[in-house]
């Protein structure tokens, strides 16, 4: 782990992989450090914003003493394992890019569905829109590039793939991910506590709905 300054009010931790990110975010949250205003997990980094009145130098020193459990980020249960805290997302597969993804991966459409549903995914971080979660840890054969041109409008509930991630659009928005299905799961609801269905660290399994 390497700490770099991010302006005069925040720090960014450079880490090796998504698993380390999950471990660090859990550790920082559980340590309940008084000088932390916000923690922003991302692909290979964690940004830590200092609370008003806290010096970033002091915060950097405190972070060096946070105890991190490396096991936290590695929980990738096998296909047979069922977890109590697993969130099941029911998907009607057949999005506009399912055929393309089938060709790009060589799996064919049915193979893509099988690979997407066979293993659990983990929420690595949020961003892009309220309730959007970057899911990692799925079948590595599903890694596909973004579309060459982004769509101006992707419907709410669209399930997509891009790079090492899978994700679900929480509301209609422009987007460049390859769309392979749709779900009616409500990703973001301000009248729900907590409003986000998928939060960093959560385990997600996709399930194909027969229509």
């Amino acid at each position, binding site marked *: 782990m390497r700490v*770099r*300054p*991010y*302006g*005069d*009010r*925040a720090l*960014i931790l*450079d880490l090796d992989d998504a698993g380390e990110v999950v471990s660090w*975010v859990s550790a920082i949250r559980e340590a309940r450090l008084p000088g932390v*205003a*916000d*923690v*922003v*997990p*991302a*692909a*290979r*980094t*964690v*940004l830590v*914003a200092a609370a008003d009145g806290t010096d970033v130098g002091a915060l950097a020193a405190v972070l060096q003493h946070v105890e991190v459990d490396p096991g936290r980020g590695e929980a990738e249960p096998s296909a047979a394992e069922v977890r109590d805290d697993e969130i099941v997302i029911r998907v009607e597969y057949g999005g506009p890019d399912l055929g393309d993804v089938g060709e790009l991966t060589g799996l064919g459409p049915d193979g893509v569905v099988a690979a997407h549903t066979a293993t659990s995914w983990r929420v690595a*971080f*949020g*961003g*892009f*829109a*309220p*309730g*959007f*979660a*970057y899911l990692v840890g799925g079948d590595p054969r599903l890694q596909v590039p973004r579309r060459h041109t982004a769509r101006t409008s992707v419907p709410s509930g669209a399930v997509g793939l891009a790079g090492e991630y899978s994700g679900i659009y*929480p509301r209609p928005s422009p987007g460049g991910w390859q769309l392979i299905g749709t779900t009616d799961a409500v990703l973001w609801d*301000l009248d729900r506590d*907590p*409003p*986000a269905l998928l*939060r*960093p660290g959560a385990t997600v399994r996709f399930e194909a709905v027969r229509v």
Partner: protein
Amino acid sequence: MRELEVVRPGPLALVQDLGRPGWSAVGVGRSGAADRGAYQLANRLLANPEGAAAVEVTLGGFDVAARGGDVWVAVTGAPVELRVGRRVVDPYAAVCVREGERLRLGVPKAGLRSYVAVRGGVDVPPVLGSRSRDVLAAIGPAPLVVGDRLPVGRPPRTYPQVDAVPVPVHDGDVALRVVRGPRDDWVRDADGLVRDRWTVSPHSDRVGMRLEGPPMRPAVPGRQLPSEGAYRGAVQVPPGGEPVVFLADHPVTGGYPVVGVVVDADVDRAAQARPGQSLRFRWI
């Protein structure tokens, strides 16, 4: 109940407070007043508690009427000509708007965002602990429109200690101090940021201030940075090479390299820079 009725919102009028920190992990940024110093000053002029919601008015033109009683207001930020009824009054001071009277803001000659605070605060329902409108996340009170009635909260028990404060200068060249990195090595020549003169683009908003100038070239063309957390003041260089300075409603994560981050004390100044204004950076 005392209210402010919106007669004309002007180009953009948004309810703002100190924002909602702590929700980044689920994709909601902090938001809040773009010029925090001006917003806090307006509240201090009225002895409001810290964090009382006010109205952020972009490029003036805001016009409201007091309903249900007299309302004390203070206007700070980009200096505007201010009228209460037919009287011309000073910004940067507490002013009483009598029941039925109108408060009208002119157009600022310099600066971009003015803050209209009311004694007691704008008492609309909070969303995730804040009354701020986040234009990127589309969370919080909707942009104000004609006919909106803004409830005014109960006045605080304390009384203002100051009548008026000096108006800061908003015109001339903008100079912003920047902490180098974290991804300064992702562009071929990060020093271009402090060497060149930049012009504020008309495509700037609360998400980010876009700059026009000589494009900054990537160190390795086509190399993609994995998404990372962002923060107010971050100077991000998208593929086009013209930097963007993240303001209050910036995305919580971004995939383009951040070559430097404007020091927190200078971000308010960035939020007041107008399209066409000249701007420089300086490493610290």
